[in-house]
């Protein structure tokens, strides 16, 4: 099949089966999204980069790019939970055959939602300080402790969790990687409101939760290196996905600026051109990363810096959009006068998390400096890990 045919067929599928407007009610919305993901999977349009044996499409990179672009343009629901980008590559690389068989397809089909249990109240950027314990008892671990800022925790079925199996002082050398059933006895999930007013993330309490040893990924006390796993392929596809999504968002912002007559102002034009430049560079970087993988089997340095590039971009973009709204930027999402249902103001707030979640921008810069540039480690800090 020619690339153009592939694009046309995918586009036709996405248009024909578009699940319609996003329900406001949370429960309805979850069902709506799960139904969509199942439909996508059953039609063979899920997991563009995934191996076929786990239900994926195993597309060439060129096709993955097309996929991500069309998917972003179609404005259909994205994946549920945070498993696909983070846990799935870890499982593919370190999981047992049985774990892969049991977990990967349901994750991809949206039947099981995965959420991450890494951070704790006193272990955010300093993840090696985590204190949630897993004590071994025969074929099970008994887990006790607390996790926090868990995105999608309230809809999760599986929590991929870091627990302390070593001594309290063992730091990153005493950590194991467990898959915890979110519905198991002893797991309490409490939604946590963020500064947008929404409850995107949760705090999770474990009280004597029993987890089969078979649900440990990797070796006991060997969980730390797994934190770092992100397959280059996934990262590259993710970068293309971001670029495609922000291409659309920027086009919408430019349209908004035109509608409001703001593009007559040369300063506004210059700012928009700056975003245009950056969104294009995002795409070029994604393509370059893919080309690197094809040529050398691994992504180059641009893939490590691209996340920082994107988070800075999305913060700047949304803040500029709020400025563009003038006094309407003072309105909350629920006000009937809010422009475009308050999406830009909400985005301004939401993207505060961009430089915090999944490792703060400061930690990312440390990692880049030490791992890519070879600068010496700060003696007060553990070796950088993510």
């Amino acid at each position: 099949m020619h690339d153009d045919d592939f694009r046309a067929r995918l586009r036709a599928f996405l248009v024909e089966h578009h699940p319609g407007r996003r329900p406001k009610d949370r429960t309805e919305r979850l069902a709506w999204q799960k139904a969509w993901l199942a439909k996508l999977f059953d039609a063979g349009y899920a997991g563009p980069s995934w191996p076929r044996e786990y239900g994926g499409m195993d597309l060439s990179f060129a096709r993955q790019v097309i996929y991500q672009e069309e998917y972003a343009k179609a404005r259909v629901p994205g994946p549920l939970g945070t498993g696909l980008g983070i846990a799935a590559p870890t499982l593919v690389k370190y999981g047992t055959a049985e774990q892969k068989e049991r977990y990967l397809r349901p994750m991809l089909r949206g039947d099981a939602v995965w959420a991450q249990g890494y951070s704790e109240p006193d272990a955010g950027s300093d993840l090696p300080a985590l204190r949630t314990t897993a004590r071994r008892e025969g074929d099970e671990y008994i887990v006790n402790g607390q996790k926090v800022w868990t995105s999608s925790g309230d809809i999760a079925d599986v929590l991929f969790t870091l627990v302390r199996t070593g001594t309290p002082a063992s730091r990153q050398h005493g950590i194991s990687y467990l898959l915890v059933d979110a519905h198991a006895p002893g797991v309490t999930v409490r939604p946590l409101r963020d500064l947008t007013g929404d409850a995107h993330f949760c705090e999770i309490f474990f009280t004597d939760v029993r987890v089969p040893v078979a649900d440990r990924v990797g070796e006991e006390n060997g969980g730390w290196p797994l934190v770092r796993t992100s397959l280059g392929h996934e990262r590259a596809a993710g970068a293309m996905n971001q670029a495609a999504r922000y291409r659309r968002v920027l086009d919408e912002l430019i349209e908004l600026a035109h509608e409001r007559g703001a593009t007559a102002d040369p300063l506004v034009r210059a700012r928009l051109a700056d975003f245009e430049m950056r969104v294009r560079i995002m795409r070029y970087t994604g393509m370059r990363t893919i080309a690197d993988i094809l040529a050398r089997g691994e992504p180059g340095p641009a893939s490590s810096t691209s996340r920082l590039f994107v988070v800075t971009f999305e913060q700047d973009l949304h803040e500029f959009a709020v400025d563009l709204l003038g006094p309407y930027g003072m309105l909350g999402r629920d006000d009937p006068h809010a422009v475009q249902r308050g999406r830009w103001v909400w985005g301004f707030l939401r993207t505060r998390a961009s430089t915090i979640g999944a490792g703060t921008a400061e930690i990312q810069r440390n990692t880049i400096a030490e791992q890519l540039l070879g600068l010496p480690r700060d003696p007060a800090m553990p070796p950088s890990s993510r």
Partner: protein
Amino acid sequence: MIAFTEEQEDLRAVVRRFLADRADVRARLDSGEGHDLAVWRQLADQLGLPGIAVPEEYGGSGGGPVELGIVLEEMGRVLLPSPFFATVALVGQALTASGDDAAKSRWLPGIADGSLTATLAVAEESGRATDLTTTATGGTLSGTKMFVVDGHTADLLLVVARTGLFAVEGTAPGVTRTRLETLDRTRRLARIDFDGAPAVPIGESPPRKALDLAVVALAAEQVGGAQACLDMAVGHAKVRVQFDRPIGTFQAIKHKCADMLLAIEAARSAVYHAASAGDELPVAASVAGAYCSVAFTHAAKENIQIHGGVGYTWEHDAHRYLKRAKSSEQLFGAPAAHRARLADLVGI
């Protein structure tokens, strides 16, 4: 999409090794030419670099903007003062893209073998490449060009005039050349006055493509310069000890370096894409022109900051990069102008 082939990586390695031995820019700055003619001969005779982007039928090796970009990135790393940039990147590319067979046969072989130096004259006293006043009528050209790279020595001048692109011999009657005192002493600039100088029209289309190719070539050079600044800064941060620790252990220094790398990698994406952009060249050139300039200047400033007092001295090379960076920003349009053009091109 771009990944370098093994041949291209080899080319990069060869050029880098060659320049590493001859990178002492200071020795050449005060000569009349502003560059070392012996190095130029070696570039031509030993490495065949002037023909890198000249088609084989005109004596070149048939590469394109990608190969040229690799060479320029390496030259940018060491701030090599050389007629290469003007002759090969500006004029060689412009002639190759001109579609003018007569012009190509006449001048490309000389460029390819290094016997002919050339430059492209774009801006005028307004400082802009628009609203041109230089005019050509009846085989002669009149007007004033400013900021012409190596304009005082080039054998051949390619002049952007109101009605297109024209070739003028550097020593032709009616041509007066004046060297300008420059901020960046590693790149010489000249003012050239034309008063009825004999001129040959090149091609038929407006020379916009020549300008876009020039912008991309400059951007490649800027990426190399920025990378050199980062390398210098990182090297210094590893060995400079303050408060009993290498300063590179401090987060404040780490973050500066990480941000430099981020900007440089983004600049690379922009320039590598532009070098293989094809029909998208105008947009890609504007993106590269806007981004790479800013990235280089940023890296040059941070390099001085990380070097502290050492970086502020004349003896250290850091200031040469700052001067090259700040001058390069203006050479073929300031970042703001590239952004404005990008806005026009994409309908903002």
